[in-house]
C-alpha cells in the first residue's frame, strides 16, 4: 500500500473516515500464532474481551475463528483461556513451522 503524499491529504490531516485502520493489517508482526481448539472451548468469550487487537471474530454472541490479518500474537488469549477439564482451547504455535 502506497502512503499518500501531503497534497492528497485533507487540510489539517483530518481523517474523514472512522475506523479506517482496518485497512492496515498488523498480522505480520506475529511470531507466535494462537490456534483455536474448538472441542475444548466453553464459549466463555474471555479471549474476545481481553484481546488488545480485536482479532477474535464473533458470530451471534459466540466465538468464531481468529482474525490472523490483525492478531499480533501476544498470547493473552492463550494465557487467559480457562479451557475445558484442564485442556486449553487456545495454544500458541511458532509461526513458519
Amino acid at each position, binding site marked *: 500500500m502506497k502512503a499518500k503524499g501531503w497534497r492528497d491529504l485533507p487540510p489539517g490531516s483530518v481523517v474523514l473516515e472512522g475506523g479506517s485502520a482496518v485497512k492496515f493489517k498488523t498480522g505480520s508482526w506475529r511470531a507466535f500464532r494462537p490456534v483455536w481448539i474448538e472441542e475444548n472451548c466453553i464459549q466463555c468469550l474471555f479471549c474476545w474481551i481481553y484481546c488488545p487487537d480485536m482479532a477474535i471474530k464473533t458470530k451471534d454472541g459466540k466465538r468464531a475463528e481468529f482474525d490472523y490479518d490483525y492478531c499480533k500474537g*501476544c498470547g493473552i488469549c492463550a494465557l487467559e483461556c480457562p479451557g475445558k477439564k484442564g485442556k486449553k482451547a487456545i495454544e500458541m504455535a511458532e509461526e513458519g513451522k
Partner: protein
Amino acid sequence: MATPLTLKELSKKEDRFTHGHRMCSGCGAPIVVKIALMATDYPVVISNATGCLEVSSCISEFTAWNVPWIHTAFENAAATLSGVETMYRSLRKQGKMDKDVKFIAFGGDGGTYDIGFQSLSGAMERGHDMIYICYDNGAYMNTGIQRSSATPLGADTTTCPAGSVIPGKLRSRKNLTKIMAAHDIPYVAQASPSHWQDLARKVQKAHEIKGPKFINVIAPCNRGWRSKTNDAIALSRLAVNTCYWPLYEIENGVTKITVTPKEKIPVAEFMKPQGRFKHLFAPENEDLLRQVQEEVDREWAKLQKEAKTD
C-alpha cells in the same frame, strides 16, 4: 435500554475501537479503551491526550476510532473536551441539536498525572459533563520509559535507572484517584481491565451521572514493565489481588470497595514477573521491598477504614 454487561451481548456490538491500530503486541491500553467504549450505547466524543494511545491509534489517514475523536497535545485533553462539551450545551440550548451525546477524555499517566494535570483539575472544577479516563502504565512509555509521577517506588526506568547509585525510583507514586476525589466531583473510581465487568459497570454508571467524572485504570505495558507480552491481564489481576491497585469508587463522597480480593497476597507476587523490579529482589534492597509492602498495606487499611466510616 443499555446493552446488558454480558460478554455474549457485548460481542454483538460493532467495534468502536477497531483492529489495525499499532499499539505494541500485548498492550493493556487498547483493552481498557475497548471495554470503556463498549460499556455505553450513547454516541460519544473522545479527546485523546498525546501518548502511546494517541500516536499509535491514529497514524496519518488510518484511525482505529470509529467515533468522533480529537487529538490534543499532551497537556490539554480535558481543556479541549471542556470546549467541545460547552459548544454542545450551547447547541442544545439553541435547539440545533437534540441527541444525547457523552464525552470521554483519554490520557496516559504522563498526560494525566503530570503534564495534563492543570487542565484536568480545571475541567473538573468547572464542572463539565464528561468522564476522564486515565490509562496508567506507570511511566512515559511512548518516549522510552521515562519516570512519571505515576511510576511506583523502586521501579527501574531510563531516567531513574537502578544500579550502584540508586535502586530505581526513590519516590512513591502519587495517588491521583484520591487527588481527584479531593476535587469533590460526583464520581471517582479506580478500575482494572482484568475485572472487565467492574470497569464496564463503572463507565456505564459514570455516564448516567451529570458532572465531571474521573476513572483511573491500570494498563500494563510489557515493554516498560519488562514483562512478557501475554501477561497484561494476569499482571493487572495481580495488582488488584495484592491491593497494589484496589478497585473502588467514590460516589458523592461515599467510598465503596467494589472488589475485595479473596486473599490479599504479598505485593512481591505482582513485582516478581516484572523486570523493572528485578533489582528489588537482591539482598541489599530488602528494605526497599519491605517499604513497598508497608506502603501498600497502609493505603489498603486507610481505604478500608474510609469505606467503613462512610
